[in-house]
């Protein structure tokens, strides 16, 4: 039988991973000064809140234009999807796929992944626990790469400043998109994977 440290009265500091006795729950870690908690506090509620915020921000992020490319005075503001379609029109399939993946596929997959993980904890879907851990690590690692489109707007707006000949400006969709990315990164940080194992062990006791 594999034991959870908590059932043996041991908790760890989540910053420096120093083990401590359960009596130190809520007190500062003797090594790094971070407050020790047996589990990340309000993990499920905070993760849901940040996840909902990011889902809401994804709507304006996709509907509002993120940048305007003007060439010889002509050019309209374009949304993320219009940017991808413009790349396809210019036969740049590879780069269109990179942008589509980073800006649309990854954010949607992250949201779905976190919802599955939250429901795992809340409803006790603890089959394939190891796959769920992989899913969490994937969501956590991939999250930052959605910032790609923000950096592309930043770089193009800086370099394409040739007066009337060609110019690029950023639009408000970029703010909504950046907020959505930040909220999902924070949501992944708030989630505590140990809750999945707690639930798993709890169910093993009931149905051994």
């Amino acid at each position, binding site marked *: 039988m*594999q*034991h*959870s*440290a908590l*059932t*043996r*009265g*041991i*908790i*760890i500091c*989540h*910053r*420096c*991973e*120093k*083990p401590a*006795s*359960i*009596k130190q729950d809520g007190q500062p870690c003797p*090594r*790094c*000064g*971070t407050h020790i908690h047996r589990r990340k506090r309000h993990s499920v509620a905070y993760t849901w809140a940040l996840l909902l915020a990011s889902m809401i921000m994804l709507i304006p992020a996709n509907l509002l234009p993120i940048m305007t490319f003007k060439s010889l005075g002509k050019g309209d503001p374009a949304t993320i999807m219009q940017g991808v379609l413009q*790349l396809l029109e*210019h036969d*740049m399939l590879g*780069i269109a796929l*990179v*942008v589509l993946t980073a800006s649309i596929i990854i954010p949607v997959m992250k949201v779905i992944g976190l919802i599955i993980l939250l429901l795992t904890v809340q409803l006790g879907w603890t089959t394939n626990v*190891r796959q769920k*851990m992989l899913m969490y690590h994937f969501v956590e690692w991939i999250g*930052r*790469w959605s*910032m790609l489109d*923000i*950096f*592309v707007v*930043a*770089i*193009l*707006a*800086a*370099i*394409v*400043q*040739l*007066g009337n*000949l*060609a110019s690029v*400006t*950023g*639009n*408000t969709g*970029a*703010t909504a998109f*950046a907020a959505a990315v930040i909220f999902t990164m924070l949501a992944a940080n708030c989630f505590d*994977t*140990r809750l*999945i*194992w707690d639930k798993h062990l709890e169910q093993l006791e009931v149905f051994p």
Partner: protein
Amino acid sequence: MTDRDLASTQPGKFWVCPECDLLMNRRAIPNRHEAHCPRCQSLIVSSKRHSIEWTLALALAGLILFFPANLFPILTLTTLGLSQSETIFMSVTALYDSHLFAVSALVLMSAIVVPLMKLLLMAYLSGCLLFHKPAPLLSWAMRSYQQLDSWGMLEIYMLGILVSIVKLVDVADVTPGIGLYSLAGLIIVTLLTSTQLDRHRFWRRIEQLERR
């Protein structure tokens, strides 16, 4: 004494998996070896040879590369006799000029401030640990480094540069500058720093120094 009391009176004799909370007996890990959690397979300890020496060298190399990467142009665009260069800071000001203040602050943080802070913190920390010098703010430096770790996004900025180059090939000539090569070096050094960092060893050393 029950099992439970025995364990909780000597927490230092154990390892706890931070991902799944499995309790393990603590054991020595030889250099260049790793220990994974038997239950969830996440990495518990990755013992590096000369971890402190390497992170100090890499952080100093990164600090040297930081300046050309930020001062020299990354890309230069030329068309019909007009030309325009770009540095990382200019992409921050361009967003500011587009009235995207929050996004411009975010780019400033993730592409300039956080990468620089990470290098400074690591150079200070590994320098103090290497020379066994009890100095103020050691555990603060390590804690801040770990918190900032995923908010430095230079490698994503680099991918953004590549996408921008491809987007601009039809429009104008784009030539890479010294800044781009320095940035590539800086990204490699930053990534190597985080792989060479043996966080358990660092925390143990910090604890020894601060106890004195």
